[in-house]
């Protein structure tokens, strides 16, 4: 049997994509790779198109190396990966919507991001005008005499993003949940095409507002890889500081919000104050509560002052005192765990199959962390642990967040203690030829993959940004099965998938 790695090498090497090789392959090798993925020999990290080719990023389990595969689509078709490896399903539907490239053999032919309201079809290629009256959408059937359907959204009851959920329920019990997303599709890939690096970085930082640091970092790293740029050491460390602050702020917010959905508002109140403390420290340190536009290709846009260091030390002191109390509060409240333990269980096989990242994957035993593999500076010089809980339910996803909070606090301390001095930004300039770069960065929600192609003049020709939610949303449909409808908000919040990041 040929390994995934050998399969990947069976094409001609394309224009260098840094830091990982990209090979252009024919139909048979493409399908062989899909089959290997289907057998679980690797993780699919992304599947996207630039209009002419379709690309796939794969992490080979045998060698722990990442490689990119591409297939030419001169006739507007490519062999479907999804019929051999289901996680590719929605990605192939999206490629069809945006670029008009048909995945041959794709089991689900319904449109995904295109709701028939843009006034045109295939906006990423030669676009044809169409009537923006909205397409009908056929939800999958769930048949049987006692079953009823509950449509929810796109406008939800809380202050959250829009999406549609179609429940088929037998009394209180959910028999099938089907998601319909795409409501917040903003056409970011098309806006990226032709954008200057500065504008593209701003766009990348607004793919998903809660992960603005992680997206800006992933985009910057892809650009820097393409241009083979050296980033000043101080900037590298400051980036990690921002990333860990973002992770903490979101984990505190999530833990509070999950408990609130189980009507335990005490935790919500305390976590909300903690989150506010972090955002205010971020404001003092970098001049923006969410740290938007602070990471730019070449370095960072704001340096850390003495005042900022003090704000962070004060936060660390509070957090070290209070986090053990939060852990006890959650761990000792059995009436709360009555709701979270056993609810929304995700099977480990599914987490593995979907290469599901972040707390959803970790809680179901997939211990992947892009800070370790492929790894990036400065994490190779820092000590940190993974989340340890693997029970796969809402409770497990809360504990993984607690574990990550307890890992991120010492990381911030280490960074403050050892922060190198010097420059914070190098000039990102074009190198007179077309270049490609890619990056994988660990956001609070999971790994974000970015691929960018830069033109000779230094503008972005194409850029694809893959949110971790692409591989988490489908698992929510599986996790809710057999739970009662009233537990859906709890399960959904424990996933906290991004709508905006997914819809792009």
């Amino acid at each position, binding site marked *: 049997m040929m390994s995934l790695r050998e399969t990947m090498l069976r094409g001609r090497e394309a224009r260098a994509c840094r830091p990982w090789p990209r090979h252009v392959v024919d139909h048979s090798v493409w399908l062989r790779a899909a089959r290997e993925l289907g057998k679980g020999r690797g993780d699919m990290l992304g599947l996207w198109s630039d209009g002419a080719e379709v690309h796939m990023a794969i992490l080979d389990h045998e060698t722990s190396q990442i490689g990119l595969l591409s297939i030419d689509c001169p006739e507007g078709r490519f062999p479907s990966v999804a019929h051999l490896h289901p996680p590719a399903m929605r990605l192939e539907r999206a490629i069809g919507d945006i670029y008009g490239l048909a995945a041959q053999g794709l089991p689900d032919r319904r449109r995904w991001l295109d709701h028939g309201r843009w006034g045109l079809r295939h*906006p990423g290629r030669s676009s044809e005008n169409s009537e923006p009256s909205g397409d009908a959408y056929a939800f999958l059937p769930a048949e049987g005499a006692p079953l009823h359907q509950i449509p929810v959204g796109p406008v939800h009851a809380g202050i959250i993003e829009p999406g549609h959920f179609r429940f088929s329920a037998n009394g209180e019990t959910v028999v099938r949940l089907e998601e319909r997303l795409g409501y917040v599709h903003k056409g970011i890939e098309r806006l990226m095409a032709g954008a200057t690096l500065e504008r593209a970085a701003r766009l990348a930082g607004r793919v998903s*507002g809660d992960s603005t640091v992680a997206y800006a970092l992933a985009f910057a790293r892809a650009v820097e890889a393409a241009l083979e740029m050296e980033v000043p050491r101080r900037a590298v460390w400051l980036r990690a500081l921002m990333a860990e602050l973002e992770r903490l702020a979101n984990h505190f917010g999530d833990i509070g919000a999950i408990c609130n959905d189980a009507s335990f508002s005490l935790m919500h109140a305390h976590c909300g104050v903690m*989150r506010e403390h972090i955002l205010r420290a971020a404001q003092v340190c970098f001049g923006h509560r969410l740290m938007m536009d602070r990471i730019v290709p070449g370095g960072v846009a704001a340096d850390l002052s003495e005042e900022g260091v003090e704000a962070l030390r004060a936060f660390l002191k509070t957090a070290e005192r209070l986090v053990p109390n939060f852990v006890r509060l959650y761990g000792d409240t059995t009436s709360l765990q009555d709701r979270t333990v056993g609810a929304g269980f995700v099977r480990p096989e599914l987490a593995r199959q979907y290469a599901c990242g972040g707390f959803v994957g970790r809680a179901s035993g997939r211990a992947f962390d892009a800070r370790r593999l492929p790894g990036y500076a400065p994490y190779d010089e820092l000590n940190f642990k993974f989340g340890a809980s693997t029970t796969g339910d809402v409770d497990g996803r809360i504990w993984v967040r607690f574990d990550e909070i307890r890992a991120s606090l010492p990381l911030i301390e280490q960074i403050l203690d050892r922060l190198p001095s010097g420059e914070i930004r190098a000039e990102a300039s074009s190198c007179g030829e077309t270049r490609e770069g890619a990056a994988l960065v660990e956001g609070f929600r999971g790994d974000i993959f970015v691929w960018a192609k830069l033109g000779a003049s230094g503008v972005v020709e194409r850029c694809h940004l893959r949110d971790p939610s692409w591989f988490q949303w489908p698992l929510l449909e599986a996790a809710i099965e057999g739970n009662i409808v009233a537990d859906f908000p709890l399960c959904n919040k424990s996933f906290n998938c991004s709508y905006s990041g997914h819809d792009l």
Partner: protein
Amino acid sequence: MRKFLFQGLLRNPLTEAAPSPDQDALAELGASLARASRRRLGRSLSIREVDAGSCNGCELEIHALGNAIYDIERFGLRFVASPRHADVLLVTGPVTKNMREALERTYNATPDPKWVVAVGDCALNGGVFAGSYACVGAVAEVIPVDLHIKGCPPDPMALLKGLIALVEA
């Protein structure tokens, strides 16, 4: 849990002093608010938040309004689950074309008198997403807007100032 509750009784509240209403916001509102409806509603407003394509950054800061530091409910402002219970729609995002109808329907489901507050730079003019095939742009192109709160995203204090102006205008 007892310890947390006990501390809550003994400590000073974390809630901060109220900011003064934003002067620009007040001026913008003066034109759009009728006296009669003010009398009918009194000093309390129910708010329905509608994400019409935002990156979720605005939602994070709107969420923060509910925390113990800002405590929005002390001003008679509260978030409700249905547009049918709302006096105010708080709309974010560059109004994606896929959300346009949902926004219109939410607006139509909100009983009169009602106000629309457009939150964030995207809601003002499409922000960084202006010109996309998938976005309409300003909220004002879809439904009438009474007040804009600028920022990317506006911080909770800016949101609070704008909303207080809405009650006091």
